């Protein structure tokens, strides 16, 4: 534990104010400054990189044609447009982080599945179908370069969002009942998320401090949080998943009591208010990311 009791007590009491006073003076829904780039890797279908105080994350999306017909039983679906598949993988090297593989798993464990599930829910697999049992297999590989002391989920989610939004797939020129054939021209490629589709899900990390909920918490804020959980919000605004990350501090009365165990737990109503807060922040985050993509595109053309 890197923080002393007076430190924890100070941070906690500032965060319990209305409005909360965060150590870096952010408002409760603002993010740490970050720098983002998209389409940085020539061998991928879509890629993005975000560097922030929270660390550095690079995401590459690759699509490969696969024959899914073997898994299908009826003839109808074999001749129909077919389906694709999604696979998410996270790589993070312990080398520069000092973290062990298991510790990292504890930080981000299971988020891959949440993302896969979220994308599937939005019907991405149908859009990945090419025809005659063939479909795109989408590999989303996330590279976390420095695991920060705080939880990197928000960083991973933002970078993945950008990478998915820049992903383009070659345009098929074959009929659905033929073997797949594609247009070589990259300018003719189709975006994975056309304008009229639901956007990829976003995952935000939330901490609870008394009546306050914080977005994008730092390590010291997590250390004094009553509860810390990730909220996954789908493109349609629905909450798709909630996962408790860690609970370290407990408020007893009005003072933080980290050294006494066995007093955890947060009221149902406050737990819900945190989820609602995250869900209300998501559209704004999405708009910010979309603006960023628009700027990148304008710079290119």
């Amino acid at each position, binding site marked *: 534990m890197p923080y002393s009791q007076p430190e924890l007590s100070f941070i906690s009491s500032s965060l319990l104010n209305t409005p909360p006073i965060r150590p870096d003076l952010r408002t409760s829904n603002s993010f740490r400054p970050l720098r983002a780039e998209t389409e*940085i890797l*020539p061998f991928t279908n879509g890629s993005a990189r975000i560097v922030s*105080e929270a660390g550095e994350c*690079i995401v*590459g999306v690759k699509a490969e044609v696969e024959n899914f017909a073997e898994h299908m039983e009826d003839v109808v679906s074999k001749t129909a447009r077919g389906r694709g598949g999604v696979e998410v993988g996270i*790589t993070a090297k312990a*080398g*520069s982080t000092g973290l062990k593989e298991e510790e990292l798993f504890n930080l981000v464990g299971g988020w891959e599945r949440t993302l896969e599930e979220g994308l599937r829910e939005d019907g991405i697999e149908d859009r990945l179908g090419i025809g005659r049992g063939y479909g795109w297999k989408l590999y989303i590989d996330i590279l976390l*370069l*420095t695991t920060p002391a705080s939880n990197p989920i928000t960083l991973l989610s933002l970078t993945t969002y950008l990478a998915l939004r820049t992903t383009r797939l070659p345009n098929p020129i074959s009929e659905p009942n033929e073997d797949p054939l594609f247009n070589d021209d990259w300018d003719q490629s189709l975006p994975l998320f056309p304008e009229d589709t639901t956007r990829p899900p976003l995952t935000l990390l939330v901490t609870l401090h008394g009546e306050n909920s914080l977005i994008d918490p730092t390590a010291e804020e997590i250390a004094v949080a009553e509860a810390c959980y990730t909220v996954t919000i789908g493109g349609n605004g629905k909450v798709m998943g909630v996962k408790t990350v860690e609970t370290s501090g407990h408020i007893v009365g009005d003072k933080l009591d980290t050294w006494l165990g066995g007093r955890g737990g947060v009221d149902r109503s406050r737990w819900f208010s945190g989820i609602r807060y995250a869900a209300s922040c998501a559209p704004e985050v999405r708009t910010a990311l979309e603006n960023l993509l628009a700027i990148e595109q304008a710079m290119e053309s």
Partner: protein
Amino acid sequence: MSRYELLSPEGLRIDGRRWNDLRRVFAQMATQPSSNGSSYFEMGNTKVICTIQGPGEPTSRSKTIHDRCSISVDLNYAPFSGIDRKRRGRGDKRTVEMQTSLENTFAQAIRTTLLARSEIIISLHILSQDGSVLAACINATTLALIDAGIPLTDYLVACTSGSSSSYSTQNDEDADPLLDVNSLEENDLPCLTVATLGATDKVVLLLMENKVNVEKLEEMLAVGIDGCKTMRRILDTTVRKHGKELLEKREQLR
């Protein structure tokens, strides 16, 4: 005979370069605030990120050397780096071999005796591979080491060269050596990676895994070393530019 026309009748290569042209080099230093030193290095479509942790307390007792520092290299190919998606495991033989040769190479450039009983951890992430991966790793590491303020005797720079000899077998005499090979050339031609200490002719690392005529080897080496000299100039420009920016920032803060 190869499927691709690696050298056009006019003597231009597949990406339009002449025989002694380097690909576009783009380098950045201090890309990551949370590490002791970091860099980003691009040679054409080969892209590498390097971060340095240390010099610091060795992570394990076996890494402690009493009269100098130990160097650990952690190399990682991103699954999306190649043409096909491929995950490489921890114990991948080629990766381990590259790690070892990088450790040995940098032990010759770093003033290890000044940092006794400490450890330097070099992590390299290959984001995109299009030939000359080892050379790009070496150049990236040099920049990151400078950013970390680790004493070096000189820039350790690397470059690759190939020979078009086996390609034009009928007239082997006038086969050209090629500087800085990309992945298409690397797959079809005999190639070598050479690393030198600064602009000197002192070769620190030489790696070649193909069959080639001895005279051609000499030519390739000469071209490679010339490439290293150019590379040193490029790295030096990057470092100076970075230093200047840092100084300007400091002036502004005053």
